[in-house]
Each structure stands twice: as C-alpha cells, then as structure tokens.
C-alpha cells in the first residue's frame, strides 16, 4: 500500500514512517503540515491513503480536518485516516460531515497495534470507515438519552461495530451470528433512524453520523 503521512511532530512522524514501512507499506510523502502534504502529493504517484495528524500548525486546532476536506475534493478516491492524541466526538462528527466516505478517525495509540492500524488504512483506502472504538463506546453509553433510545441492545452493538468500520461479515464474525442476521439488524437500524433501507455505504455513514450526533443531544 502506498501512503502519505503528515504530522507536525518530527519524532512521531519518523517513528510512524518506520512502523508503516515495517508493516510493508510504501511511504512516499512525509510532511510536517497540511499545505506541505498537499504540495508534496502532487509530486509523487498518488497514494492509496494518507495519515493525518488532526492538530497541526499553524492553528494547532483542526488543521487535519481542513486538509482532509481539501484532499477529498482533489482526490475523491483517496483513503484518509486522521490520527489524534485524544479522542473527541466533536472532531469525529465534523470529519464525517466534511468527508463522508473513505475516512477514519483513530487515536494515535493505535500505533501500538500495527495490524489494526493497517486494517483501518486498508478499509479507508477501499472507501470504508474506521472510528476509534473508545469514541464509539462513549457514544453507545446507555446513559445517553435521545433518538438512539429506539434501538435495542443488539442493534446498538451492531451500529457501534458499523461505526468502527466493520463490514456486515466482520460484524457477523464479531457477534457470532450469521451475516443474514446482521443484515436484518442493519435494515432495522436504518428503519429506526429514518434512512432508506438499502444497505449502501452512504446509509452506513448516515447511521454513524446519527450516532455521533447523539440522537439529538
């Protein structure tokens, strides 16, 4: 897999590059900021996915999201994975609004599990989604009242796995049920959230967005 990375911490950037290359990826761009990344990407063969730090100079707030939106406009098929030192629902939500598909939002802690990291990169490169499980867990916390209350326990679990980026098959494996059962849950979730019932990637994003918005909270 061909990758580009952008992070304003040199030490982390170099270590990440080392890790990704160890895992067999080819890192063609290693930039310290969003603009630098955008400029460098034009010079090389198009990467399958980019790894972006969310908080970069100069604003030190959400450079990563802005850069992600610009990347998506320029390269509609490129996978985009944002890494963040801390998990924030607000950022995840804004990212998914700006870049609905082929996008992921993970904690930097995932560098400790290179397999999962590479899997997430593959998913976003293929147009899928990857959301930090810690965020998903918080979103699904039963204390949160709102629209999601209409979902039953099993459906919430399925929605959470969808948010993490699992496919129906993946979810079936995870929950030890048949893919058909998963499909039935997914249809029911779409139904309850007022989405049309076709199992499209678009609908999956909308369902996750509904989750991120906390059902109106």
């Amino acid at each position, binding site marked *: 897999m061909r990758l580009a990375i952008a992070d304003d911490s040199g030490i982390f950037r170099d270590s990440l590059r*080392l890790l990704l290359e*160890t895992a067999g990826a080819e890192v063609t761009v290693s930039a310290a900021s969003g603009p630098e990344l955008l400029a460098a990407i034009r010079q090389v063969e198009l990467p399958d996915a980019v790894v972006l730090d969310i*908080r970069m100079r100069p604003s030190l707030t959400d450079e990563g999201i802005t850069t992600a939106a610009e990347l998506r406009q320029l390269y509609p098929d490129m996978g985009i994975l944002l890494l963040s030192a801390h998990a924030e629902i607000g950022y995840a939500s804004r990212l998914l609004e700006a870049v609905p598909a082929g996008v992921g939002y993970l904690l930097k802690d995932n560098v400790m599990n290179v397999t999962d990291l590479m899997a997430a990169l593959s998913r976003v490169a293929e147009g899928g989604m990857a959301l930090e499980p810690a965020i998903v867990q918080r979103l699904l916390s039963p204390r949160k009242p709102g629209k999601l209350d209409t979902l039953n326990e099993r459906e919430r679990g399925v929605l959470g796995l969808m948010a993490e980026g699992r496919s129906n098959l993946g979810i079936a494996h995870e929950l030890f049920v048949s893919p058909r059962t998963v499909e039935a849950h997914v249809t029911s979730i779409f139904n309850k959230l007022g989405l049309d019932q076709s199992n499209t990637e678009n609908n999956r994003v909308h369902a996750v967005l509904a989750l991120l918005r906390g059902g109106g909270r």
Partner: protein
Amino acid sequence: MNAIAMRAAISSPPWPVRPSGQLTAGVGRYSWPRIAVVLALVAVWAVVLPWPDWAHWTALTAVNVVVALLFALTGLLLAREPGQRGLAWALVLTGICRPLDYIDAWGVGPFPFYALVFGGIDRVFGAWALLRYPNPSLSRGHRRFLIAFAAWMLVTRTLVGVTATPQWAAGAPVWMPELLPDVRLATVLSIVGYIGEGLCGVVLIVLLVRRLVSARRLDRVVLTPVVVAGIAATVAAIVSGAGQQEVGASSAPVVAYLAEGLVDIALPLAFLVAFVQRALLIRNITWLVAEISGGAGVDVIRDALRTTLQDPTLDVVDLSALDGPVPAGLGGLQEEPPSAVPGAEPAGQDRLVEFVHSESGEPIAVIIADPSLDRYRGLFDVAVRTSALALQTAQAQAAAAQAKLAEVHASRARIIEAAHAERQRIERDLHDGVQQRILGLAAQLSAAVAKSGDPAARAAFAGAREGLKEILAELRELAHGIYPTVLTQSGLAAALEEVADRLPLPVRLDVPATRVPPPVEAAAYFAACEALANVVKHASASEVTLTVTVGESEVAMEITDNGVGGAGPRGHGLANIADRVSALDGHLVIDSPPGAGTRLVVTIPCG
C-alpha cells in the same frame, strides 16, 4: 415658597459670616484699648454723677458704679458678636443711664427733677436688652411693650415732676418746674406711675418666661442665665420701688437700693456668662474639628454636629448617596424628616437647610437643622465648613479605597488570567512534546516487535510498549486535569459532554456550542467539574441537570440535582467555585434546602 426651597435657592448666605476667631481675639473696632477708654469715661460719669452720696452712702454708690461699669463692659464685649450690636447699645446705654437715678445727690438746680424723670430710663434699656438677646432684632410686640413702658415712665414721672415741690432739701437752691404744685396730686401720680411701672415689670417677667419656655436647644442654653437674672432684677426693682412709695419721697430706702443694686450686678454678669457660653460653643467647634477633620462618614459627622450644635434633630444627607437630581432628593427629604431619631421632636416645616460644598464648589451634602441655629451663624457656618472638609476627606478616602479595591480586583483577574495561560501552556507542552515522543517510541517499539525474529526480544519490546501505554494514560489524565484539550479545541459544550460521560450518574446537558472568552470558559468548566464532583460525592442524587445560557453580557450556568440537599457555602468545593467565579466578577448562588436537592447558579460576566 417654603423655607427649605428658599434657603436652597440662596447660593451664598445673605448675612455677614464672621469667622469665629474674631469673637475672641479682640481685634477690630472693639479692641481692648478702646474698651478701656469707654469704660474709663463711664467710670468717671458714674463716679461723678452721684458725687455727694459718696460721703453718706459709699457702699450703695460703689455698687451702682460697679453695675454701670459691668453693663458697659458687657455691652462692649457683646458688640463683637455678629448681630448683637443693638444689644450692645442697649447694655451700654443701661450702664450710662444708670447713674442718672442718683444725680439728685447734688441736691441743687434741676438735678433732682432730672433724676425723677430719667432715673428709671436705664430699666427700659435693660428690658430692651433682655427681650432682644440673643436675637438680632426685637419682635414687634416686644418693641411696642418697650415703647409703652418708656412712654408711661416718662409721662407719669414728668407729671409727678410738674406737680411735686422740692421738700427734702428746704433752703437749697433746687429747681422744680412747679407748674401745678400739688403734694397730694404728686403723691397719687407717683403711686399710679409706680403701679404702671410695676405692671410693666410683671409683663416683662411674663415675656421673659415665655421666651425661655419657647426657646430651644442653644437658645435656651444661652438664654437661661440672662432670663433668670432679668427676672431677679425686675423683682428687685419692683420691690425697691414699692419701698420708695411706702417710705415716701423724703427719705431714700438705702437698704432696698443697695439690694437692688446688688441684684442688678447679676444682670450684666448673666449676659457675660451667656457671652462666655456662646464663646464656649464656638470652642466646641475645635473639638468638632479634632473629631472629624481627619475624615469621617456621614454618620459620624451627623452625631458630632448633633452634639456640638445641641440639636438632636439635625440630619446630614450625603448627596453622593442620593439618586437623581438634587432638587428631587431634597423634595424627598422634606417629606420624610429625620423622625427616626429617638426623642427627637417632630421636624417642623421650617428647617434650616444648608448645602455643604466641596472645594471645587460641588454640593456634596445637605445639613438640615433646627431653625434656631440660624441665630448662631458663626457657629453653624464653621460647623458646616468643618463638615465639608471631613466629608471631602472621607469621600476622597472612599475613592482611594475604591481605586485600591479595583486595583486588587484587576490584579486578581490578571493572576487568574496568567494561571489560565500557564495551564494551557503546560497542557500544550505535555500534549505536543512529551506525548508525541512517547507515541513515537511506541511506534518504534511496534516496528521492533514486528521486525524482530527473536521471540524473547519481541516479548521484551511488547512489555516496554505496554509500559508506555500506561505512561501515556497517566500523562493524558494529568494533562486533562491541568487543562482539558477539548475545552481549548471545542469549547464548553464538548468539554462538559466529556465530563458528563465520565460520571457514574446520568447528566442532562443543555449547553450551547457558542464559544465564550477562554477565562470564562475555563471558570465555568472548572466550576461545573467541582459542582458535579460534589453531586457524586455528597448528594446521593440519581440525576443531575446542567444548563448553560450564554447571554450578551454574561454566561449563566445552573446545576440542579435531585439529591439530599443541605449543601452550604462553606463546603470546600463550593468555596472553590465561589472563588473562581468571583475572580471574574461572577456570582455563585446556592439553593440547597435539606432533602430537596441542590441548585447552584453560577453567573460570569463576559463582554
């Protein structure tokens, strides 16, 4: 136009205001050498007029000289007091006229006639002095009485003079008009005249008693000795006159005259006492100055003025404490006189109102006092000026204290701001520095784990990686406590959602996404954390609601739980909240009845 409005309309007093020093220093027209010259002349006059009497009735003559001199001296001394010139004249004239009564001692020429006709005129002047003191002028009724008294005396005595024949000095060359010489008629006229004069004496006593009864405060203080002595002198004059009538014109009742003369000494002395009392009142001002000139509040000044001016109804109104234009404030004052003073007389319509001005001419206070104080202008004006000084000093001190307070407040705000900035800096350093390095190390260890073929090495790397994971978690917790990144990045709403998610009880949040200035955000955030931690620790609540409203000028946060209530402002957590919030001029309101939950309202200005 009522008295208050009239006085208020007058910017400068229409009466001459003399500084108190002039009353005692003895400078100007009535200096001591001049007084000595006048007294010497009076002494010569009083000694010479009854000259032949010195041989027989030395004591009586001496007493009369003393009386004349005392009257003259008292008059001269009182002439220095503002508004007392007329009184001074009355007293001096009393002293000068007094020896006329004894001019018949010469027993020759027209002197006995003069003594008969003018011998009582000093009593008219004495009555004038008594009725006038301490007012600057006589009332109409008093003036009529004096005119009637003088007319009666002159007319009846003249009539006696023209009907009498000189009997007591047969052979001496005494001249009498002898227009209608008739001894019986003369005796009757003399008795009638005496009765009329006696009635005038009684009327005078009544008038004096009435004056004393109606006099208030300072007036009564300075009037009492004068009235007492005046009544005594009048009674003595009536008695001695009666003796004269009884014994007849042939032999003078020396003992009665002596007694009258001695009693009469009391009268000028009483005026002197009153004069000294007035001077002592002026001295009170010195005490007042010592008491309040260092600067004093309105209350202290009010009490000091009440004592100094002996007016318990006196009130001082601080104009700086009144709202609206001054006339409106005064209107309110008039409707509500200071009736709250215990034992104070109800304030009448007619009050003495004086504005206290600052050096720059600004009215700073109003003194409302008994109108009788108007007769003690010197005293009153000095008191007003002293109060002005004290009030101005007090107001300056208050302004200085206010400025100091504002300075302390501003410096506290700066300290809070600096602490806030420092926290953010530390958090950023931890986040961008240490945390990135640890994450980098973790990535390298992961790479090492993946690369290494040696299972032992892989296990070691993996162990190290686990250790880093723990360090990272601790570091994150630490950074979050110092200053939550989410607050900087996404604001209060997102930060409070994270807090709510960590709590072991349901939190209903209603927080707008609106951003407010960072110090306000931080204060609200930490106050919320403290409050929510309190709920978890103490309230035994099953639910808590947190609502934030962002207004144009302030942020209001309300935290309500359904727990046991009974939270007090002294609780450590709540005191912390109050401190944080008040540093930004905000407020904390605690409503926590036992058993009925707790409701905290925090308001912080932002604008």
